[in-house]
Each structure stands twice: as structure tokens, then as C-alpha cells.
């Protein structure tokens, strides 16, 4: 093993919480080591929700979409007092988002936040999503939807799981005058077409020209053209602007099934820029180690590669996510576990309480509310109810009391709790 890497902060996890934390920490002059698997972020849709829906509280009630997320926070916390948002000042959520948005703009991925209101945007199924902060490439769609401007949704031949007809038929009640078109991607050999392939093809001006030529006769009088999210991998704003120029009308993107292009863009943006900010980033690796004695620093190992590194850190931020991210483990006949330090997990009594009977129950499922309980500084509590270690913090979906899937608060909780945790460990910076 090489000489230990010393740092102020070790971040466990490379999902949205971990990546945002690395941005916050490096901006505040903390030295950072970070490790995690890369799947997490590329599976995100690329739109950032603060609060998109309020689950039903009682049986028989519907879940309700949220138009004004910051106003609705109070209502959420009345019904869900254990939600991580209870630990945050709403202003901090905005501040945190703006810091991440500045970073992403620098990386060529401009985002727009919605002020007091959520944006309303189409999903690939033709449902509506209420989201607070969206990539600028989706904005013309949100605006056209709000105005009811005539638009044409375009599907690409051979791209599975995206039907322009499906989007148009289901949005018709909300968006009159939607038309559809279907186009073969020029220059593609045919057969199955993956969004990532198309996005990389469209980086080249000639491919954009060819696509625009194929599209021009199909989109009719539409003022706006919607495509699955394929408008370039890097600097999608430039690709979108060029397409708009070629077509003579605004273009926008609709997120696709995971893993979609907007998620991959985020992954590439973080992985591309963080090392330049001094973050020692170990992709597809794990950070593991014991919980040290009180007062002692963390001695962790980066594992998963032939060369193992030792990391000596004063503080650790646990952003290891839930089951999909690997932060929580759920085995048969055992309680849910926290996989790195074995911290206590708040959870239903046994597996029969994890899920309700009905998949789409508007109240959501208890298993998603399981997770770590933390103190006001986001330090996970140990078995005795006191913080497990004064240098250990947690952020993101591993925190108890949220059902991000149903509340559509995943990005908000990830970014804002990471922000608060980093500020708690670097006060005044």
C-alpha cells in the first residue's frame, strides 16, 4: 500500500449528494478524498426536484402534485416531521442549489431553477413532472407547455421506450395542438438506437445538419420541437442552439428511461471537474474502514483496484445512498443494515412492513423512510442516541424519514443536506 492520503474530508459515495458535497467542500478549501460506484448518478433523470408531490397521509386519499415547493414544505413537515428537510432552512436549499448550478454552468451544463414555482415538464410516458430545477435544454418545452404553444414531439426510429405518440396522446388534455413525427437518425446503421449514441453523434455539426434536414419536412407548423434527451453529451446548450437555428424554431429535450443522457452528462461533468479542484476521486471504488474511537481520525481503505490506498481523514461524509447505491443492505431474515459502519437504521419491525400491498399506494412504502437518524449537524446517531462519532456526517437518500421516490425530493435532499453537512464541518467558510 502506498503512503496514506491525508485529507480533511473523506466522502463515501458518488451519487448526487456525494458529488455536490465534493463541490461544496472543495470550494471551502477542504481537502477531499472521494470514492463510489458510478452507476448512481447516470441513473438520475437529470432534472432536480425539491418537492414534487405530497404523498397521501391516510388510506383512500390521493397523492398530490406540488406547484409551489417552498410553500408546500410546511405542509410536508406537518405530516412528516422526521423528514430531513426539517433540519434545513429553506433558504439553504436555494443557496445549495445555486452553488451546484454555478459549478454545472462552469462544466457546460447550465440549469435553471424555478423561483417560487415548479416547472412542469413532460416525461417519456406522457405524464407530467413537477420539478424545481431543470437543464436549460428542457426549458423551451416547459415554456411551450405552459403557453400551450404548438409543438411537435419527435421519436427516433429504433429508440426503445420513447414513443412520440404516447407523449402526445397523454398530454393532449394539457397541451392542445401537439403533433408527432418519427425520424431515422441519419448516419446511423439502423436497428436499435441508444440515446447516448445519438448524443455523441450530434456533437458533430454535419450530423446536426443532416438531422435538421430530415426533420424539417416533418415538424409542420410547430413552433417548438421536442426530442428525447439526445442533444449532445458535452455543451448540450450549444447543440440545442444549433439545432434551433437549423430548424428555425426552439428545440427541447424530454428525459428518457435510465440510464439517460442527462444523467451521463452529470457524471462526466463531476468526474471531469472535481479532480481539477483537488478532489482525489476514486471511481468504481469503495471506501471502507472501522468507526474510530472518539477523538481519533478515520483510517479508511480505498478498495476495488489492485493498488489499494489508505486514507486518513478527520471527517467522513456518508453519502452511500440506499439499496441501489449500496449504502443500505436488506437481507432476508435480518434488519436493514448500514453497510459501511454498521450504524443503527430506523426501520419497520420486519420485512412484512417494508412494502404496502399495493405498489402504487399513494402513501408510499415504509421501506423508503428507513435510514439513518441524525442530529442537527447531520451526524448519524449511534446506538445510544448520541452521534456515533463527532467527525461522521451523513447526507442524501440514506437519511431516514423521506420517501424521495414518492415525494420527488431526491435532488433537493441530496444537495441541501450535503451543503448543510459541509458547512457544519467547515463553519464560517
Amino acid at each position: 500500500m502506498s503512503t496514506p492520503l491525508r485529507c480533511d474530508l473523506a466522502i463515501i459515495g458518488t451519487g448526487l449528494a456525494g458529488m455536490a458535497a465534493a463541490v461544496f467542500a472543495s470550494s471551502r478549501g477542504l481537502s477531499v478524498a472521494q470514492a463510489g460506484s458510478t452507476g448512481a448518478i447516470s441513473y438520475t433523470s437529470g432534472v432536480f426536484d425539491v418537492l414534487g408531490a405530497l404523498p397521501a397521509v391516510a388510506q383512500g386519499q390521493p397523492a398530490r402534485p406540488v406547484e409551489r415547493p417552498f410553500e408546500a414544505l410546511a405542509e410536508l413537515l406537518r405530516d412528516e416531521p422526521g423528514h430531513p428537510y426539517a433540519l434545513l432552512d429553506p433558504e439553504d436549499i436555494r443557496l445549495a442549489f445555486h452553488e451546484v448550478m454555478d459549478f454545472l454552468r462552469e462544466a457546460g451544463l447550465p440549469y435553471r431553477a424555478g423561483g417560487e414555482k415548479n416547472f412542469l415538464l413532460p416525461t417519456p410516458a406522457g405524464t407530467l413532472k413537477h420539478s424545481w430545477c431543470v437543464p436549460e435544454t428542457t426549458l423551451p418545452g416547459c415554456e411551450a407547455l405552459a403557453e400551450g404553444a404548438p409543438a411537435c414531439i419527435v421519436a427516433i426510429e429504433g429508440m426503445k421506450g420513447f414513443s412520440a405518440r404516447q407523449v402526445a396522446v397523454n398530454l393532449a388534455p394539457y397541451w392542445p395542438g401537439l403533433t408527432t413525427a418519427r425520424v431515422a437518425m441519419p448516419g446511423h446503421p439502423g436497428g436499435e438506437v441508444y440515446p447516448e449514441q445519438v448524443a455523441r453523434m450530434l456533437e458533430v455539426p454535419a450530423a446536426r445538419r443532416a438531422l435538421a434536414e430530415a426533420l424539417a419536412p416533418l415538424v409542420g407548423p410547430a413552433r417548438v420541437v421536442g426530442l428525447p434527451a439526445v442533444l449532445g453529451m458535452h455543451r448540450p446548450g450549444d447543440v440545442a442552439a444549433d439545432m434551433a437555428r437549423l430548424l428555425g424554431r426552439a428545440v427541447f429535450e424530454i428525459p428518457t428511461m435510465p440510464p439517460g443522457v442527462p444523467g451521463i452528462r452529470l457524471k462526466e461533468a463531476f468526474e471531469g471537474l472535481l479532480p481539477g479542484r483537488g478532489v482525489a476521486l476514486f471511481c468504481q471504488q469503495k471506501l471502507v474502514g472501522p468507526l474510530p474511537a472518539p477523538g481519533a481520525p478515520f483510517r479508511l481503505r480505498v478498495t476495488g483496484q489492485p493498488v489499494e490506498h489508505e486514507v486518513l481523514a478527520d471527517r467522513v461524509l456518508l453519502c452511500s445512498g440506499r439499496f441501489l447505491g449500496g449504502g443500505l443492505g436488506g437481507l432476508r431474515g435480518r434488519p436493514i443494515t448500514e453497510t459501511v459502519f454498521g450504524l443503527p437504521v430506523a426501520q419497520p419491525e420486519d420485512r412484512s412492513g417494508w412494502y404496502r400491498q399495493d405498489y402504487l399506494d399513494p402513501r408510499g412504502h415504509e421501506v423508503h423512510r428507513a435510514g439513518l437518524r441524525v442530529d442537527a449537524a447531520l451526524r448519524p446517531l449511534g446506538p445510544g442516541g448520541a452521534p456515533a462519532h463527532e467527525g461522521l456526517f451523513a447526507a442524501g437518500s440514506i437519511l431516514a424519514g423521506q420517501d424521495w421516490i414518492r415525494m420527488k425530493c431526491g435532488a433537493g435532499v441530496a444537495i441541501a443536506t450535503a451543503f448543510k453537512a459541509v458547512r457544519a464541518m467547515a463553519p464560517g467558510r
Partner: protein
Amino acid sequence: MRTDVLIIGAGATGTGLARDLALRGVSCVVVETGDVNSGASGGNHGLLHSGGRYVSNDTEAARECREEGALIKRLAPQCVEDCGGLFVAVAGDDERFVADYPGWCAAAGIEVCCLEPAEARAMEPVLSPKVIAAFAVPDATIDPFRLALENMAHAHALTGCTLLRRTRVTGMDVDAGRVVRVHTVNTVSGEAGTIEAAQVVSATGAWAGRVAALAGAHIPMLCSQGTLLVTHERMTRRVVNRLRPPGNGDILVPGGTVSILGTTSVTVDDPDRARPTVAEADENLRQALPMIPSLAYTRFVRAYCGVRPLISAGGGDGRAVSRGFMLYDHTDAGLSNFCSVTGGKLTTFRLMAEKTADLVCARLGVTAPCRTRTEPLPAAPACRWTEPGFAPRLWAQRHDADDPLLCECEMVPASAVDSIMNDCGQQFPDPGLQALGKRSRIGKGSCQGAFCGVRVAAHLYDTGHYTSPRGLARMREFFTERFKGQRPILWGPQLIQAELAEALHCGLLGLELGDPEAAPAAGKDEEARS
């Protein structure tokens, strides 16, 4: 609507009866609340019993299974995998039972071969090192979906026999000892209808008691729910049975590319409310571990349950009741054109159908003899997509780049969906994803429909089969239905898969946020746009 014979229930028995009657020149209509095999025929092990399971407590049923199993192997080989079976005992199991076993088999006429424990373990390496005895028997497996679909397809080809899906029988008008009219309701549209038939047969399995009651007749049913678990990969070549009296977690049956572990026996009041539970999943596993220890680390992709239609002979639990079948002519209730057939096994469906058809024909004055004993079941091309491994084989042969795989786990291409829609589309003018799932492997792989459900729906919109928000409602239905089977086995990798699925369906698509068919008409709801 009028027909010669109305068959209620499209399980193995009902569809088998339709074919038997068609071979005798009698035409009929089959009505089914759900779809083909919505009842026990879609919720069983798919074990084509050699009879070995029943030799210790029901020689009669064992003999029936032996004879029928042999017939089906010969006449419907496309539905059968003749894989063979083992009965094994482990240390601690009753040694008297072991010693008596070969004698019982002999009494029922079942070929049995005694193996050394080491030999059995060489044949099936997942068996516990603690195996103390093993016997080989001629067990096989059967694809009940293909069987029922081909029964229907053949009956349709012979006499135009039709299946009315999503049609529930809700009442019968009886006049002068005859059922003169049967009332139905479409379970989707709520539309009521009536059917008049010279003969009415209930082949409704666990629901036989309820349906008979509609005509004022009585059947003492005992409904016994059994839950089964599906592993991610196939674990044995053969069927593996525990050598002991029938109990929980006793059988591991290969089903093409997977294995199926079962089964529990829990008495339930209402077969409509049967669903697999966490407790039953755990119990099956706990019981099976001594026989196959690696099940502790095996990935399960799904659980499901069926309700055994048992005839309660007063008292006793589900295990004690005979697996023989019963044909009620209902003359004791003063009825002359209504009968019910229930009980029995999937393995004995043909015999049940034969005996029932004999009665129906006698009442109709038809003298044509039964031909299902000799006539092979024709393989229908539209039904082959239910076969595990068929789609991947075809894909490897053709590898048509312009035919995208909609279901990546089971390699079901868009052309399969198109051909099912073509061949069976008249049966489902309003295609639910479930109907496609029944007729193919869509939704059966490790993602359990999470991804292919979205892709198939998009394809159906693209090909013009879905033209309204109803397609979204069908997606919701499909995911809800798949989840019933997921819930009991959500741990380890499948829990991770489920989190990803819900992140897609609810997190991204917001499918839980309301009924898409209740969307406001254009322009009505200004709020939604603000």
C-alpha cells in the same frame, strides 16, 4: 348470445374441455373472468406428476397422475420437458417413510429406481451432503400457459370455439330444472350480457362452489392457497422432491430457465383475494434449506400463488384432502343441464375434461367418442413465445438488427409482440400488457417487467394499439400485478431491482399520482397548465 355448450373458466380444465368437445364436433363458448389460466392453472408448479408425490397417502390420485402424465408426454410433447425427478430424504427425515416408499410406488404402478446418495448428488450437485436416500421417478414439467393456449387454439380451429376474456358469470336463471340463461358482466367495461346454452359447465376450480350456488347447487369447497417462489436461474436438471409426506417447501421444479420452489398450504375464504405473503415465502425457504442449502444465497425474482380447488370431506386441512377430482351432475339439486368439474390436478386435466365431456355429450345426445386420448395436441405458432429460451434461440439464429428487443431479460423482440397481437389480437381488442405477458416471457425476467413494461407500452402506442390514456392505465395495472409477486421476496439483489423500478415508475414517470384515464378534457383544467 347462444351456444351449444357454455364453459365457465379458462384454466387447464375449461380449455381442455373445449378441445375435447370440439374433437367430438360440439361447439362451445368459454367465458373467463380474467384471462387464460387466471386461476390455479396459472399459479402452480408446472409439475407433470409421475404420481410419486401421492403414493403415500392417495394411491388412486397417484395412479391417475401416472397414466395421464404418460399420455401428455406423448401427445403434447411441445408443452413438456421430460426432465425426470428425484425424491430425496436428508438426515433427520423419517426412515420408515423412506423404507416404505418403493413399495407404495409399486402399488401405484410407478417406475421407481433406488439411487445411492452419492449418485443423486452427482446428478444434482445442489443437493445437501446430508442426503440419506434418493429415488428416481418419471416426473416431468409442463408449461401450463402453452397447454391452455394450444387447447383453445385447437378448439377454435376445429369448431370456431371462442374465448370471452374478462367476462364474469354473475347469475343464472333456472326454470323447470334447467339453466335457461347465464348472466355475465364485462369486468373492464361493466357491461352486462346474457348467454343461452343447451349445456352449462362450470370448470371454475376454486370458484366452483360459488358458481354452483348461482344455480342453487352445492359443492363443499375447501380453498387452499399455495405460494411458490421463482429463482433467478435454474438450479437442477430434474424435479427434486423431499421424500416425506407432502409439506411446505418440499419441491423444486425446473421451469425452463428458472426453478420454482413450493409450496405452502393455507386455507383461505376467498380465492379472489389470494396473494403470496412474506411469511409464506420465508416458510418455503426455511423448509427447503435442509434439502438444498444454497437456496439461502439464491436470488429469487418473484413469488406467486394459486388456490387449490379441494373438495372438503368434512374437517381436515388442505394437505389431508384427496387430489382426486369430482364431477357433479347436480341432479341432486334438480338440474338437468348444468354440471361442475373441480378438484384434481393440472396433470389430470385431460381426464377431467374427458369425463365431463362424456356427461355433456350424453345429455346432448352426441355419441362421438373422446379423442384426446389418441389425438396429438397441435403446436400453435402463436403459443411458442411462452417457452423459456425460445426467444433467445430465435434471436441468436436471426439476429435481425431492425427488430429491437423490448424485453431484454428474456430477449423478447418487437416482432414477437406484433405477431401475438396479430394472432390473438381479436381476443384482446384493448391489449393489456398482462395479456401479452401471459402469451410470452415479457415481465418474467429479473427486472420483472419494470423496464420492458415501459418499452412494450411505447411500442403499442407507436403501432397504434394504444391511442388514449388507457395505455397508461394498462401500464399501472401491469406493474401493480407484477409487484404482487415481488413483494414477498424483496431482499438482496431483488430489493435493489425493485428500488430502481419504483424510481422509474413513480420517481420519474409519476404513475402513482392518479388515474390517467381521469385526466381532464382538453382546455377544461386551466390549473394543470399553470
